[in-house]
């Protein structure tokens, strides 16, 4: 069963005047354990598609099914709660909470889930060790490099045990070394722990490591290529 399934998905702006098709009739499925890139030029609809899959935006038409739930039919409050428990987010600009330490940022989402403090402590510490940040747990984002901040963001996304992680251009603001380091970590999590990743990117370094590449042009699905097939 696919973890994500869209069917005849449209996102149209100014539909009544001059319609702009940000997402144009996309039907696509993503399976568990995939490491997939959504690529395409600027304005091709990558981020919009991820926003629709992540329940951050509502489609004009069509359906979005995530882990068996019709996210497009949910109310805003239901979507917030759904995101908390089913989807992990990694953003281009890291978007950590500046007043919290690396540990607190990662633990925050589990606290929102109401998890017991002991479970939070064990999971967050394990994840921070996995991404090589065991010595930076008590540092605030302003004290971390871009690569370290993005690794904390990955830990935060993983901490809630989501069904998959949506990452919108996660390497766009990283230098090459940090980008490769981050990609290595995410690839390892995908292969060893079966975490499903869905990226939007036009970074060739990410595309090279993806197992599947979905190409969008002008909001429409142009290619869907699985490597090795």
């Amino acid at each position: 069963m696919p973890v994500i399934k869209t069917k005849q998905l449209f996102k149209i702006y100014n539909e009544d005047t001059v319609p702009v098709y940000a997402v144009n009739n996309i039907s696509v499925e993503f399976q568990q354990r995939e490491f997939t890139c959504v690529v395409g030029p600027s304005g091709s609809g990558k981020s919009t598609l991820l926003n629709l899959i992540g329940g951050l935006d509502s489609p004009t038409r069509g359906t979005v099914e995530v882990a068996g739930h019709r996210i497009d039919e949910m109310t805003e409050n239901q979507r917030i709660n759904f995101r908390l428990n089913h989807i992990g987010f990694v953003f281009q600009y890291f978007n950590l909470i500046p007043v919290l330490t690396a540990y607190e940022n990662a633990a925050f989402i589990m606290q929102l889930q109401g998890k017991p403090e002991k479970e939070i402590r064990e999971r967050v510490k394990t994840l921070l060790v996995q991404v090589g940040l065991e010595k930076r747990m008590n540092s605030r984002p302003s004290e971390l490099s871009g690569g370290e901040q993005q690794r904390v963001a990955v830990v935060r996304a993983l901490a809630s045990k989501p069904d998959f992680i949506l990452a919108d251009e996660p390497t766009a603001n990283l230098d090459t070394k940090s980008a490769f380091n981050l990609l290595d970590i995410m690839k390892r999590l995908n292969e060893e722990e079966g975490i499903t990743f869905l990226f939007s990117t036009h970074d060739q370094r990410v595309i090279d490591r993806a197992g599947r590449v979905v190409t969008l042009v002008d909001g429409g699905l142009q290619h869907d290529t699985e490597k090795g097939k």
Partner: protein
Amino acid sequence: MQLIKMSWRNIWRNKVRSAAVMVAVMLGLVAGLFSSAMVEGVLLSRFHNFIENQISHIQVHNPEFIRDQEVFQTVGGGQIDLETVANWSEVKAATIRSRTQSMIASATYTGGVELYGIRPNSENNTTNFSRHLIEGDYLIGESENAILIGNALAEKMKVRVGSRIVLTFHDKDNNLVSAAFVVRGLFDSGYKRYDESVAFTFHDYLNSHLGLQGDFHEMAVLANNLDDLSSLEEKLSSHFPKSEVRKWNEIEPGLEIIVTSGNMFSYIFLILIMIGLAFGLLNTMLMAVFERTREIGMLMAIGMGKGRLFLLIVLETLFLSLTGSIIGLLLGYGLVKYTGRVGIDLSAFSDVMKELGVDPVFYPEISREFALIIPIIVLITALLSAIYPALKALSLRPVEALQK
């Protein structure tokens, strides 16, 4: 718990702005508290002066005397009644007086005064009158033609201690009586208009001219405890069934307005300060929300519910306002307590103070009720100020907020 930590740290993200708001809140509360306490202190000084120097807590009169002020409209009993009442446990002191409207004349001045015949000892116990003497002596001995007049009146009349003056008034049979008096002392009660309009002599001496024997026009009673006034009033009414017994607020309704207006001014000050506080907080929190649009979008994206987001903004507003408020209230209460102990000396403006009937040295104070209500009102103001910024944060759409 994490929200509390986050909101506390959030207010320190812009240290200068938050500190400026806190200092503004603090200074506003110190100023407001102190201003209210000063007004309350001035009004209470006026109130206590009036009660303790002039009307006392309860007075007993012939009901007709209140209306007509005729000399023959007396209360009988005199000294015996005075001794009885003064010995009641609820009574701190009591005195009797005879009163008559008179013309007072010196070589250069003629004017109207109300002449009081007093019993020097009981009068002093009741009104502590002798403390106002600034020159000469208090009334000593009995049946003398000694008189005490206000210093302000003495200046008008161009007389001094030892001068002879003549007072003319009607006796109980409406005969015109003139009597010569020797100025024994000059007083300054702190209330100029009062000082210019009254004079004091011996009760027995005045009564002998009025033809009243031991009767009196007025009994003034000072209670030990303000809470006992109603029961004391009933007791006096039983003791003087044909007389009218009135409490201070019935004798001088204006005085009650003074007391209540003190509270009114305090609340007006408080409301003005709270309006300033509310707008200051609203502005600061709106700026904080606008500056953190992307962060708020991220919080909603990762699953922070609207209730928690609302609570986060409310907590930040509360921390911002309460930090300044707590310091401001402590400093304000401290300042009021200190000045309430040592007093504020406005002797430099003593003429104005005398016109107002206020001691040049007065003691700021705030009522317990007012002191308790301030923190509650600050809390409510902070909560109300948080609502609009919090709603503004909730109205953000994560997909748009994340692009800011």
